[in-house]
């Protein structure tokens, strides 16, 4: 910085300052609750999940099969034209093995989130979900997986109607 400046503002605090009552503060827990309209594309996607199926939309111009489904193709900016049922299998495009919660507490069991490139969708087309029935060290990019749905009576037309994706075939517990 220019030599004229000799000190910088900003006063750092420590956890102790709060514990010892040296700093005053106010709490507020917001009541920020929403009920989002799912709309046409996601509404159908969720209903199909409850029926045990993954669906996508096809763009009539570029012919890409889009998942998550949307009513407009973002490349062509034209309405998508038809529903396509996907087989529910796919390939792990990328993944992580997470050992902490969002507030940085250690997890008992690691969670394995992944982006699964779904068969039947445009190349690269996929969704994020969790992997299950697999040990972290067995996961790799390119792993073939399949969706595992919850029992019918437990489904609520939500993304969690799929419990997780598990490896197809080769990897066994």
């Amino acid at each position, binding site marked *: *910085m220019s030599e004229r400046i000799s000190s*910088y503002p900003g006063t750092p605090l420590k956890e102790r300052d709060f514990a010892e009552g040296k700093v005053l503060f106010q709490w507020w827990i917001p009541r920020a609750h929403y009920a*989002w309209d799912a709309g046409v594309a996601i509404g159908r996607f969720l209903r199909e999940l409850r029926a045990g199926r993954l669906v996508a939309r096809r763009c009539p111009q570029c012919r890409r099969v889009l998942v*998550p489904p949307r009513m407009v193709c973002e490349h062509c900016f034209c309405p998508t034209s038809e529903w396509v049922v996907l087989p529910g299998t796919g390939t792990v495009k990328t993944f*992580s093995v*997470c050992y902490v919660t969002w507030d940085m507490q250690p997890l008992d069991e690691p969670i394995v*989130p992944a*982006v699964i490139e779904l068969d039947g969708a445009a190349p*690269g087309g996929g969704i994020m979900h969790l992997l299950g029935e697999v040990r972290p060290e067995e996961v790799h990019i390119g792993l073939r997986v399949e969706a595992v749905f919850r029992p019918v009576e437990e489904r609520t037309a939500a993304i969690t109607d799929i419990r997780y994706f598990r490896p197809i075939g080769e990897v066994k517990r």
Partner: protein
Amino acid sequence: MRMRRVAVVGAGMTKFVRRALETADELSWQASKMALDSCGLTLADVDAVAFGTAPDTFDGVHMNGEYCAPGCGAYGKPFIRCYVGGGTGVMAVIHGWYHVASGLFDTCLVVCEEKMSSCQPHPQGAFLTIFDHTLERPLGPNLLWIFAMEMNAYMTRYGLNKRDIALVTVKNRANAKDHPCALLGEEITVEDVLNSEVMAWPVQRLDVSPISDGAVAIVLAAEHVAHRVTDKPVWIEGVGWSLETAYWTNRDLSYPLQVEQAARMAYQMAGITEPRKQIHIVEPYDPFDYKELHHLEGLLLADKGKAPEMTALGVTRRDGDLPVCPSGGLLGVGNPIAAAGLMKVAEIFWQLRGEAGRRQVPGNPKRGLAQAWGDLMQVGTVVILGVA
């Protein structure tokens, strides 16, 4: 050229700390006052205020821009906030630029502030709501997931290992020792990074920049005013910004295409045809170590997959051929989201004027580039600054 020239004529910033005593508008005021003092201007000289701050959920105030406006000197003045997630710090400069380049104003104060510590029990909680409310939030995602998945895609595509990437944290933390506002200026080794706790593989604790509070402000002026205010105006030569699709699970995460788009837009405006020769200093956005590398490639300053090699060869050290993050970056100085991006622009400003003190890049640099990034790994914002 019919474009109105705009220069940066002053800058100021607060320390970046983990938890500041000051409120959001007090931090804004401290940085704004410093920026005005640095060029001998007062609030009366400010025609408009351009403000940037990232999620309101950190500060715990809806319409946070309104809350911070008085601290930025916006009382009785035109005030507009811009917001593109992590890209905000550099976008705010672009936002201020078109305030002045439009001809409506001769000066504009650009302020970026972030007070992440208000969000309890952990600021990371604010990021839970960036995910799609229907398709992603029910899975209980964690911000680390998306960085880890992008890092994994990048590493796997180019066969990189953590050792290649950890060098960035080592370099930036060391650079930060010379930054008076830095939170984590220190000497660490590659081993320290590789031995740190694995949080969401492949992300380890020392790959990540610290959550912080802080504010930065710069003063923009039209050409005729800039020459009166300072004899070393730093010109905004090019700006660029671009936003990728929200459907990030459909993208190739190994390459930040939107950063390339933003860079091309800025290079074209600045008349730059050979960036690797014509850009002398780069401050790419480095919230995680691999991001500096990812972004250098997106900025066309390194071949795809080759930024780690460039780093290992020492090219990106302060005394190297292309100094990268001489400030110490987010990894070393701190990451108060919007303020961090503006800190990078301020760094280029000070460097080009020879005022960066112990951080000064040798060889009389004439042109620098600052870049920020954010959203669901979607946005790229670029500003190119230059001196005559």
